[in-house]
């Protein structure tokens, strides 16, 4: 049985040294990683990322990321987009603080109740965003509605905003496959593994239930725009039919 990669969310915090908000970004990210969503999140080290560490950059190409920036200069968000792909979510601590009506932090280190309160609030928001990206609604954030200072990029495959890079780099074992969606070539992450799994489960390409299941699986690894669902569904089913035909011709999956 092919092993589909477990989906996680990458957190990339600016950790800016000049402002207390930079410390807040760092503290909040670590709180989510260690306490609120352990096992569901990974931190990406921004200095390593900037220095060219391929595994940090590769993760951000294939998995959703949340950039947490201290200030409006948005170093983490810009770096992620520049070297990998646009983060799925971008938060700026200074903007969020104003929206939440919290006191400004005073110190970059040491005891500071305002900074600690802001970090806790931000961590909670982050956990909610992690859940949303992993499609686990209601399991974390206390906020009933998304706070307006959160920027989400929900269109297309993860990382669109610029062209996603070529498939299956040597730094990742997550294969992708291109499918034709109404004349447009779209890369779908993890599709070869999904097809192999479906074939082994005996799912037939001529059944509606197969199409539903395909969409459900593909959604785990790819963002799907609402207005593109129907076209993608048809394209996936067609591609799966071709996969099954090819497997039958070669005598296996």
């Amino acid at each position, binding site marked *: 049985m092919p092993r589909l*990669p*477990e989906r*996680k969310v*990458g957190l990339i915090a600016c950790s800016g040294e000049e402002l207390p908000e930079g410390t807040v970004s760092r503290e909040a990210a670590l709180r989510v990683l260690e306490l609120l969503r*352990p*096992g*569901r999140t*990974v931190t*990406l080290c921004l200095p390593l990322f900037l220095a060219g560490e391929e*595994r*940090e950059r*590769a*993760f951000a190409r294939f*998995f959703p990321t949340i950039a947490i920036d201290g200030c409006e200069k948005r170093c983490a968000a810009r770096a992620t987009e520049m070297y990998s792909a646009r983060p799925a979510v971008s938060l700026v601590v200074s903007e969020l603080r104003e929206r939440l009506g919290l006191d400004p932090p005073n110190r970059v280190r040491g005891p500071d109740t305002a900074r600690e309160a802001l970090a806790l609030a931000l961590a909670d928001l982050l956990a909610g965003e992690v859940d949303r990206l992993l499609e686990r609604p209601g399991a974390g954030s206390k906020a009933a509605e998304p706070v307006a200072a959160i920027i989400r990029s929900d269109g297309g495959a993860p990382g669109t905003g610029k062209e996603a890079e070529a498939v299956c780099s*040597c*730094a*990742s*074992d*997550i294969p992708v496959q291109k499918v034709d969606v109404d004349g447009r070539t779209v890369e779908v992450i993890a599709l070869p593994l999904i097809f192999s799994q479906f074939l082994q489960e005996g799912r037939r390409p001529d059944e509606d239930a197969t199409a539903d299941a395909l969409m459900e699986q593909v959604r785990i690894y790819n963002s799907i725009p609402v207005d593109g669902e129907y076209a993608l569904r048809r394209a996936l089913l067609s591609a799966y039919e071709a996969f099954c035909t090819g497997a039958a011709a070669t005598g296996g999956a």
Partner: protein
Amino acid sequence: MASELLETTIDKFIFRVRQGCWYSPVGVWVQPEGSVARLGLSDFLQQRSGDIAFVNVRPIGTVIAVGDEFASLETMKVDLALDSPASGTITAVNQRLVGSPELVNQDPYGDGWLALVELRNWEGDRQALLDAAQYLEAIRAQALEEMGG
């Protein structure tokens, strides 16, 4: 060199296993070179251990049995005692690690080797070890369990 390495990726971590080596379950690799073998730390074990600050290998001439401690490492996270996967006599110790212990992290299958051992019972000792493919599966399962995947 890249073609001699098997790889697996868990989250952002890439773990490499060198083909042609044999592995203890803990992660010490053995590379036979005729009647001697080179010993070192697997990529998986060095990543888990953290940045290595000190390496202590038992001196040349030490006779070791399988399971005897042949080296110890210190990182900021752990103090690691390494049991030998092969029996024999230590004939060389990597002196570069005294001044540059980070070689174990940077090049675990190359410049970061730990010791050379004159083998005494390699055919027998090898039975308890994993080949590269087996070790890759073992570390993948362990990494997935530890990382909550």
